[in-house]
């Protein structure tokens, strides 16, 4: 692994070296390193690009890292990763994609992650996206996440895209069984002429299921963002989505919420707020000795922390 790839790895997975536990590192279209444990197996798919991650029932306090790195300009790939999480598990899965493009051709990573989660399990899934390089070629990522959440299972899904991705279209769909719970936290910042679209569709099919989708985003310069969220309450359930956006410069953000109650006992809420940084927040930080620019940076960093 070269210096560029090591930097990407640090940005998307917070890793300076090979992690403990199971991992699969994919660089420029190939699996370059892999480790499995007694409870977590990683198998290369034979019919298409991608891997199956099989987590045995009862696996506790283990982690899986599956970062993807692209440093070869012009590379385009489509990857299918399937996660089979057994019953009674408690695991952390760290994915993420880093693209370094210093050439003139577009580099693009599209990935479909499908989670088959059993009963009574807890899965924390963290996904970071990062782009670097000063080439004219774009850095494009289109991640798709599909979650099938079993009875009384709980999934925390954290997605972060802070820098360098020119175009992204993110789609997350989730289907929840009885007693299942999903919490999604999205942090997004776009700048330059970047575009980002995120869409969520959650079907609360199970009795007592619940979902909370929280999106915080900052759009700078001429960038554009679109946030779509759709929650269907198909049983006695609770759904909440919240889109909180800061716009700066000439950027635009659209938020399109949709909540549908198909059951009398479905409780669904959507909140959306988009606006510039409140002037009084900047004033307050200036009274503490910060310049206007420092105050703005502090507010944005805190907002996306």
């Amino acid at each position, binding site marked *: 692994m070269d210096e560029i790839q090591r930097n990407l790895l640090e940005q998307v997975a917070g890793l300076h070296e090979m992690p403990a536990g199971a991992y699969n590192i994919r660089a420029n279209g190939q699996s370059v390193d892999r480790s499995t444990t007694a409870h977590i197996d990683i198998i290369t798919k034979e019919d298409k690009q991608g891997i199956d991650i099989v987590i045995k029932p009862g696996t506790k306090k283990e982690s899986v890292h599956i970062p993807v790195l692209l440093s070869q300009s012009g590379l385009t790939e489509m990857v299918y990763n399937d996660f089979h999480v057994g019953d009674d598990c408690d695991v952390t899965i760290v994915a993420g994609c880093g693209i370094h493009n210093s050439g003139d051709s577009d580099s693009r990573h599209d990935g479909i992650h499908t989670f088959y989660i059993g009963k009574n399990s807890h899965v924390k899934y963290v996904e970071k996206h990062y782009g670097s390089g000063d080439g004219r070629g774009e850095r494009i990522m289109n991640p798709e996440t599909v979650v099938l959440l079993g009875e009384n299972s709980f999934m925390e899904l954290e997605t972060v895209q802070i820098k360098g991705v020119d175009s992204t279209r993110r789609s997350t769909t989730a289907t929840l069984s009885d007693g299942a719970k999903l919490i999604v936290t999205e942090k997004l910042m776009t700048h330059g002429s970047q575009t980002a679209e995120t869409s969520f569709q959650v079907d609360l099919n199970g009795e007592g299921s619940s979902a909370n989708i929280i999106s*915080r985003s900052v759009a700078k310069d001429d960038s554009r963002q679109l946030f779509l969220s759709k929650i269907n309450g198909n049983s006695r359930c609770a759904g909440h989505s919240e889109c*909180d956006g800061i716009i700066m410069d000439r950027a635009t953000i659209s938020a399109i919420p949709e909540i549908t109650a198909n059951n009398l006992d479905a409780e669904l809420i959507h909140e959306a707020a988009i606006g510039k940084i*409140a002037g*009084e*927040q900047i*004033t*307050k*930080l*200036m*009274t*503490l*000795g*910060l*310049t*206007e620019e420092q105050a703005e940076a*502090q*507010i944005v*960093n*805190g*907002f*996306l*922390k």
Partner: protein
Amino acid sequence: MLELQNLSFQVSGDTDSQKEIIKNISLTFEDHTFIAITGPNGGGKSTLAKLIMGIEKPTAGKIVFNGTDITDMSITERARLGISFAFQQPVRFKGIKVKDLITLAAGSNIKLSSACDYLSRVGLCARDYINRDVDTSLSGGELKRIEIATIIARNTPLSVFDEPEAGIDLWSFNNLIKVFEDLHSSTDNSLIIISHQERILNIADEIVVLAGGSVQARGHREDILPELLNGTGGCKLYNQQ
């Protein structure tokens, strides 16, 4: 320490007319003094405080701080020169923690124990608050006390408090009085406090009565306070406007 020279502040009215909020005020404050500014609502008190901090710019006149003309200086420059300002309605932030705000106020990476000490001084149990966001989860009174803690952390030659008692409950109010007494006795710093509260006026060295944008009276507490408290339905000085 602070001189306001012929200070005026006008805003545009409903028609083309100008409304004068501050009318040609001249005041000089000495070092290490505790000044209370009081007067009826709409009399110009908060505007005067904002003019001192640079949040509003005067339409005429001059502000001199420790010999330096700060009239055209930004809020940041004034803050760095040593002026602090506690807002009447403190600002909320999403994602900024109490600890972050106190650290920014202190101006350097302070120890956690120091940050906790500032909170304890305003009557907040540090452990419960230090990692909380300064957002809508805090009540108005909690926010107000955190605001005052940031001013203590700044420890500047001049601190301006805009109605610190607003939104503070009775228990906290006793504590607040003690905070101001301590600030005044333990440092050489000066305090300017905008207040309607007799108990705050009662611990000030001097009182300035501001009404209709002008100074109606100024003097030692012993001279001004009895006048303020005299009569029914408001004080004589208030009624001079």
